């Protein structure tokens, strides 16, 4: 059975300017031990998708569609039931390790919290488990570190603590929302390696959200490129990079400065900025910035075309 199956996921946010369609008709699935990458610019709906999966949307948000985890639709669950699922089945690593840890509690206490809550461990057991987890994510002297406050740790170590917390109850799916964006390349390397190793050992499903095509390319099995709240291109990672089909993916790739590609060539830019989610254009959302746009694009949303068995573009 498919571990996670998302069908027609829509997220609507009621803002003061009107209704913003943050996520539109998203379909994807994830198997055990598989990694899915979600790429796109800020405001394209990446994080909203993650929050919708976790059931953590802000109050003005509404989700429709289906999120099936192990065959059960999460959108039909009550808040109390979701509390049990979060942590046990679904866990998330947030973008900023600086702000997502509580500064007035020791990291030990923060790791022990889900253990005692979800697994019903005693204080001593939870403590021993927290030490084991810290050791597992590669923090030196875990026995002493457990009494440290977040400000006493470096950015990379804080992110490791976040990973330890997310792993504490052995979730089925780990969602990592830009886990390395705030970190240096060398530390990013270590953290990604760690996440990969843990995912393999535990056989979890991983959703890796990033704006960095490089990170996604090296760490995922399949990719979903999002733009204006919708998926514009999906497929196996190798297939996507073999042949970029959607003009947005092509633009994103061309805009990236690449090592060893020297300085003669000018960076190709995508003109303009991401569309306003409140007043989405009638046709393809990428029309205004697309070098290939024609009259059809302006008026009719493009259908999703299968390019081959595991690669589709809108």
């Amino acid at each position: 059975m498919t571990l996670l199956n998302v069908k027609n996921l829509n997220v609507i946010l009621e803002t003061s300017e009107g209704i913003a369609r943050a996520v539109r008709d998203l379909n994807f699935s994830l198997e055990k031990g598989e990694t899915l990458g979600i790429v796109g610019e800020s405001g394209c709906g990446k994080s909203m998708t993650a929050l919708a999966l976790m059931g953590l949307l802000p109050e003005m948000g509404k989700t429709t569609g289906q999120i099936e985890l192990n065959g059960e639709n999460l959108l039909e669950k009550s808040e109390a039931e979701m509390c049990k699922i979060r942590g046990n089945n679904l866990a998330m690593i947030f973008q900023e390790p600086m702000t997502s840890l509580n500064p007035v509690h020791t990291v030990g206490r923060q790791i022990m919290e889900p253990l005692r809550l979800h697994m019903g461990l005693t204080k001593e057991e939870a403590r021993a488990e927290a030490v084991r987890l810290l050791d597992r994510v590669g923090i030196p002297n875990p026995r002493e570190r457990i009494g440290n406050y977040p400000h006493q740790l470096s950015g990379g170590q804080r992110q490791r603590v976040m990973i330890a917390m997310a792993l504490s109850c052995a979730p089925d799916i780990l969602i990592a929302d830009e886990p390395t964006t705030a970190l240096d390349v060398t530390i990013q390397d270590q953290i990604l390696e760690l996440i990969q190793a843990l995912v393999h050992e535990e056989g979890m499903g991983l959703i890796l959200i990033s704006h960095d095509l490089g990170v996604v390319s090296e760490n995922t099995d399949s990719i979903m490129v999002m733009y204006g709240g919708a998926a514009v291109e999906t497929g196996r990672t190798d297939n996507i990079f073999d042949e970029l089909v959607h003009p947005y993916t092509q633009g994103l790739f061309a805009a990236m400065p690449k090592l060893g590609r020297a300085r003669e060539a000018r960076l190709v830019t995508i003109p303009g900025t991401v569309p306003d989610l409140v007043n989405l254009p009638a046709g393809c959302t990428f029309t205004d910035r697309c070098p290939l746009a024609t009259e059809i694009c302006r008026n009719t949303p493009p259908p999703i075309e299968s390019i081959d068995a595991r690669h589709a573009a809108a």
Partner: protein
Amino acid sequence: MTDCSSHVPVLEVTDLVRHYRLPRESLFAKPGHVYALNGVTFQIQRGKSFGIVGESGCGKSTLARNVMALEETDSGSVKILGQEVVGLSFDQLRPLRQHFQMIFQDPYGSLDPHHTVGRIVAEPLAALGAISNAERDRRVAEVLESVGLKTRDVTKYPHEFSGGQRQRIAIARALITHPELIVADEPVSALDVSVQAQVLNLLKDLQVQYGVTYMFISHDLAVVEYLCDEVAVMYLGEIVEKGLTENLFTNPAHPYTRILLDAVPKPGSGKRRERIKLKGNVTGQTERRVGCSFQDRCPMVQDLCRSEKPPLKEVGPDHLAACHFSDKVSAAG
């Protein structure tokens, strides 16, 4: 200051040292220090871009603040267009500030939300002394146009703009005094790839148009390679390698540079590549050590590295590296 002859470097930094004192841990203990800059030396020629790369905590931003004379320097000299700025008072610096301007990392935090764009952009003109309102408006309009904003944007407030546009406003503010040198501290790291490309292209165009010199700080090696003529790699407050971008990126002579280059993920390269990996973080800024600053994390460390500090020596034309075994590192590439 266009009267300067062309061979005077726009920026000349010699042996710059900056140590921050830490609070005493007890009444009788000696206070510790953070050794942020330990003798940094480099020059930037007119119209060139000089990149500085390194991990967080290696002293990049401290260097920027010291070059901009925004804080006191412990020792060493910073000459801008041949004029020493270390040791000058703020009043003495004020008329000189028109020649060196800065662009900050965060386009949200660096623009005052209560001021209109016109006022923000015109602010550095105050250092030029009294000028007429008409002249001021003319220069604001001119500079806004050159960064790709509209003249009517002057009455808007920063919150009405996107991140990329805000960074354009910050660039306009830096450009308005027609500076020789612009120090840019991570100017594109807060932006999306597509917007980042627009801003990088703009910076390149402005250099062609105005001949301005950049000191460009970034942790993103690909961005530095795209924009800069020369690069210095910093580690623990020291330059460990310096050279022309082409040479340094194709043939790094310091193990740290090699590892940094290897750590950059490459799109479309498939699954993980084989490479040397770096353990640990930037450590030990608070202790003085004997020998090479990179010894704790270096994969090829030898006894010599622990006892003797490698000097920054020439490994090729215009290419310096501080490693005892730089020939070995180069050969491995």
